[in-house]
């Protein structure tokens, strides 16, 4: 089937080539960045390309954190109508590359020096079989705490350095009548928080073996049980209405001072920015207690498809613009993430951004940069979703004990592999 698809596409591209030998000055872009801030950030790219004479054909499909867009992408690929590029996450890029539908940007990558500036951990996903197939846009880091400073001052809290510190801080907030922990009860939010809990409880080595290598010994270890117990502890600090809440509503609780802290990726900073809050004065960004020095990341990538030859020039322009230092800086300042290349100056970034960039650089060099399992950078989607199932069922009580949780986790991951 795929072979047929490929032949079909080759034929189609052949015809297209015959029809108009001139290059098509247009990029077709599938993405799910439809809200104000993100769209504004992406608009920078659109304008950069416009300067070079390339039109932007927008294919936005919002919903489900990219689920709807990925469904649309699958349909487009099945039909043989590849977009120039699509926003994609981690293992999805590799799946599509394995199916042979991705383009080859190696030439551009070498010319632009991507292989040197882009962290190796990211290259694991943007390079397939020695070929560059995707352009990373940013690096998100997951193990952050976002704290409302006014509330923090009111309860007299200080930066928690260990998990126990964190629990003590939450207790203080509880006593003061503030919701201690803002959480959205959707499986990916719960699992994202659990990523940090596991890193904090077991340390970098443990996280890597368990959640990147899927080592069964670690998955069923007592440390994992302890991690689940710690998660259970955190959940007791959550308000009763958390189930089903969107993540940005949880962030809004922190922004408004209804809640003290949210454990969330750095995209939460975009919400603080949009609400005109300043780091240090209005809100605080700390690494999740006990995870300083390590970074759990995910990254938005623009997967580059094997488009007909007359569209390749536009694709190269898009990829080059995406990884240009100016765009990397401009985009990530707005989005809350950090640049996907480590050689971008941090001048335009705020305090949290600067820390994020420094942390990324350090983790990259120190080998403590790990893919987030919850965000699809630790294992393929089947495993990641099985993992999210288990965590969510544990949080909501279908799974009652940490013993049971560990058994289920091993079984679910084994099943999905």
């Amino acid at each position, binding site marked *: *089937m795929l072979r047929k*698809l490929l032949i*079909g596409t080759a*034929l*189609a591209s052949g*015809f*297209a080539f*015959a*029809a108009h030998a001139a290059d098509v000055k247009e990029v*077709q872009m*599938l*993405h*799910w*960045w*439809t*809200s*104000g*801030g*993100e*769209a504004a950030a*992406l*608009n920078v790219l*659109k304008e950069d390309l416009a300067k070079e004479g390339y039109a*932007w*054909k*927008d*294919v*936005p*499909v*919002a*919903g*489900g*954190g990219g689920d*709807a867009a990925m*469904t*649309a992408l*699958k*349909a*487009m690929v*099945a*039909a*043989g*109508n590849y977009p120039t590029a699509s926003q994609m996450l981690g293992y999805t890029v590799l799946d599509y590359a394995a199916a042979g539908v991705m383009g080859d940007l190696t030439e551009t990558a070498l010319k632009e020096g991507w292989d040197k500036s882009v962290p190796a951990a990211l290259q694991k996903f943007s390079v397939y079989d020695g070929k560059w197939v995707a352009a990373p846009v940013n690096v998100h880091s997951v193990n952050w705490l976002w704290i409302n400073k006014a509330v923090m001052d009111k309860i007299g809290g200080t930066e928690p350095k260990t998990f126990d510190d964190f629990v003590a801080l939450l207790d203080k907030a509880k006593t003061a009548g503030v919701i201690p922990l803002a959480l959205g009860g959707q499986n990916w939010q719960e699992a994202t928080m659990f990523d940090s809990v596991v890193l904090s409880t077991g340390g970098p080595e443990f996280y890597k073996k368990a959640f990147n290598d899927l080592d069964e010994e670690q998955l069923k270890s007592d440390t994992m049980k302890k991690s689940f117990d710690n998660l259970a502890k955190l959940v007791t600090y959550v308000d009763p209405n958390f189930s089903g809440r*969107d*993540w*940005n*509503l949880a962030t*809004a609780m922190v922004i408004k001072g209804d809640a003290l802290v949210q454990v969330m990726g750095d*995209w939460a900073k*975009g*919400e603080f920015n*949009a*609400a005109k809050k300043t780091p240090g004065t209005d809100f605080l960004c700390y690494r999740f207690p006990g995870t300083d020095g390590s970074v759990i990341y995910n990254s938005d990538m623009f997967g580059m498809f094997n488009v007909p030859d007359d569209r390749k020039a536009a694709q190269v322009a898009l990829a080059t613009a995406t990884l240009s230092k100016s765009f990397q800086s401009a985009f990530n300042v707005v989005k809350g993430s950090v640049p996907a290349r480590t050689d971008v100056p941090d001048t335009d970034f705020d305090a949290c951004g600067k820390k994020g960039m420094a942390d990324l650089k350090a983790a990259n060099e120190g080998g403590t940069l790990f893919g987030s399992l919850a965000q699809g950078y630790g294992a393929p989607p089947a495993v990641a979703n099985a993992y999210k199932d288990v965590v969510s069922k544990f949080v909501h009580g279908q799974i009652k004990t940490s013993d049971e949780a560990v058994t289920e986790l091993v079984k679910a991951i084994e099943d999905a592999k």
Partner: protein
Amino acid sequence: MSAVATPARQVTGGISARTVNRIVIYGLLALFALFYLMPLFVMLVTSFKTMDEIQNGNMLALPQAPTFEPWIKAWSEVCSGLTCVGMKGYFWNSIKMVVPAVIISTLLGALNGYVLTKWRFRGATLVFALMLFACFIPFQSVLLPMATILGRFGRFGATLQNATGFSFGLGNSTVNLVFVHVVYGLGFTTLFFRNYYEAFPTELIKAAQVDGASFFQIFRRIMLPNSLPIIVVTVIYQFTNIWNDFLFASAYAGSGDVMPMTVALNNVVNTSTGVIEYNVNMAAAMIAALPTLLVYVVAGRYFVRGLMAGAVKG
């Protein structure tokens, strides 16, 4: 059927049992009307509130300072992806997809119903049963194979384009959507017309045959002019289903220039970051739903009449 009037048997304190009866009936009807109207009410009042009021007030309260701002924004400014032209730009995309799809599927349904009832042949019932069962296929499971075939159409269209200079619409996203909706609407339209024509007097067809009318003349001159009630039912049903479809629309027509209303609305409403402008979202949702609401309110009367005329018969 005439209503069942319970005769007033006794008069108690000046209020007859009948009156009590009527009060109970009207009370119940009003209560259920409230239940049905509640979400619409919430959407309407929210769309006229300021964000402040939404965040701090009760969702069921009336707006204290009604504002049309959200509606104006939804109509002409709101963004779907990087394109910020409001909902108004997507009306035409939807219309140009829905209208042909409704007309073609209704017409084919009518023809099928006509053949299946008035020109029966051996196996006609089996053919109908197979077409009816097709109504039950989950659309998620046809998404990919359909995409593959639409892709083939597109490549064939490109070939034609090269050979003849005209692609016959093959490969065009709107045409693709029309095709998909016709394919998966056929079961229902055929069901509706078949049940209606089942009760349609066969003697009329015989009379027309004796009068010398051909197969198509009978259809056009006798069947269609006498099918108004069922045409109304079918058109309403198809129109709302196709207008509201998101799955096919997002998968086959996602780009801005052909994107139907539902996909645009989804992009407006389903944003993952930033402050959610509920008032604008609600206004956008109302705008997107306006055509279908209008169809139901205007044609609602004929709808029950149409159902009566045969659509509900087994």
